[in-house]
């Protein structure tokens, strides 16, 4: 047993040494850091909000969201589907679980933690929604907002009990519905320009955001809201961020709620008998 562990340790060391050799020899790790950005980074930083090059821009000052949902949008759509299938796979394991509200715990923790949690439970979703809605203007976006929101539901499960969330209407069907709605909005938004291009006979791409000289359909980036004047919404980015926020927050909350169910329900739901 001892020899085997030493062998595994040496093996882990060799794997890491090979990794370090690759990273250093390809000049990916530079110590100390280089003077300037790599040219690809500079290109994205100079183009994402450059109104002099409107054929290449994404109309958003947030370069990370621009790359995530515009320049590299199709990749993110596939990553969203990986997320979707991971949650679906987890739920499939307990597929026949039925939630009986009378058996769910409502005792939770002590009065002090309950009171503090109720205060925090108001503020976390507000921060999450703000992070998701400002995703095209400030650091953040749908993924981050959804993850923050999932923290709120996790906190509620631990401090107030699963029954608290369930009695407020957070049922399995409704959360699944919210998540599916987010995914449907994403697919509509990414396909809209392509289908509009097909119908009028112009070029249109999947996950296209702004117009191009050779593909004249786009989402635009300013909308006039009366009193507020022109409001910057950066084309498809804000819709995709909101949809991703819905999908991530509902999916993770559902996974946490099912995971916190009582033992007998899980055994029944997973067909473990």
């Amino acid at each position: 047993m001892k020899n085997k562990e030493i062998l595994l340790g040496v093996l882990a060391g060799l794997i890491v040494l090979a990794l370090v050799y690759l990273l250093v020899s390809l000049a990916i790790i530079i110590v100390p850091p280089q003077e300037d950005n790599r040219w690809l980074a500079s290109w994205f930083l100079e183009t994402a909000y450059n109104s002099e090059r409107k054929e290449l821009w994404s109309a958003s000052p947030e370069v990370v969201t621009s790359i995530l949902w515009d320049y590299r949008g199709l990749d993110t759509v596939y990553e969203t589907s990986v997320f979707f299938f991971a949650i679906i796979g987890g739920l499939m394991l307990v597929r026949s679980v039925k939630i009986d509200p009378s058996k769910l715990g409502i005792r939770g923790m002590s009065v002090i933690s309950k009171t503090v949690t109720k205060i925090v439970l108001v503020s976390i979703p507000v921060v999450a929604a703000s992070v998701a809605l400002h995703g095209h203007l400030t650091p953040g976006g749908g993924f981050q907002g959804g993850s923050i929101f999932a923290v709120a539901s996790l906190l509620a499960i631990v401090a107030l009990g699963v029954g608290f969330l369930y009695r407020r209407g957070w049922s399995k069907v409704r959360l699944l519905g919210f998540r599916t709605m987010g995914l449907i909005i994403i697919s509509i938004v990414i396909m809209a320009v392509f289908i509009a291009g097909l119908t009028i006979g112009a070029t249109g791409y999947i996950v296209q955001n702004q117009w191009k000289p050779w593909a004249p359909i786009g989402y635009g980036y300013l909308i006039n809201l009366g009193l507020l004047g022109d409001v910057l919404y950066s084309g498809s980015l804000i819709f995709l961020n909101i949809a991703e926020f819905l999908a991530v927050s509902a999916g993770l909350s559902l996974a946490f709620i099912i995971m916190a169910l009582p033992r007998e329900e899980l055994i029944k739901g997973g067909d473990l008998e």
Partner: protein
Amino acid sequence: MIDFSAIIWGYIYVVTIGIIAMTIYGMATRPNIVKKLILLSILSDTGNLIAVMLGVHSGVIKPPVFPGISFTNHEEVGSDVLKEFSKSAVDPIPQVLVVTAIVIGLAVLVFLGYVSLLLYQKYGTLDVRLLEKKIKGEAK
């Protein structure tokens, strides 16, 4: 004159790469599945940390977001201003990779959590040595 920045950066890289080596070793040798999951999440977080550190260059003082733009303040910005901005901003590409990697890592962790939860409910243990015996039917 000693270059302190090289020493500090070298130290940070050595520590993070050492953490990677330790987590791989731990995942191979620890028998408890929950400990394996904890080590897996530490491994992915360390990988994300290295990816974000690769984007830093010596003149960084800003995040990759052009400052001062809001819903109602949307002035047009030209190439000259953005060239100045790109000299002081961090590389956005590793951050993009890390954003999706974190959420997908969380989803995969939730999936593995389900698997280990059900394993525990069915067999009453998360020790892989005992699990092997119990699945083969050699031990109760």
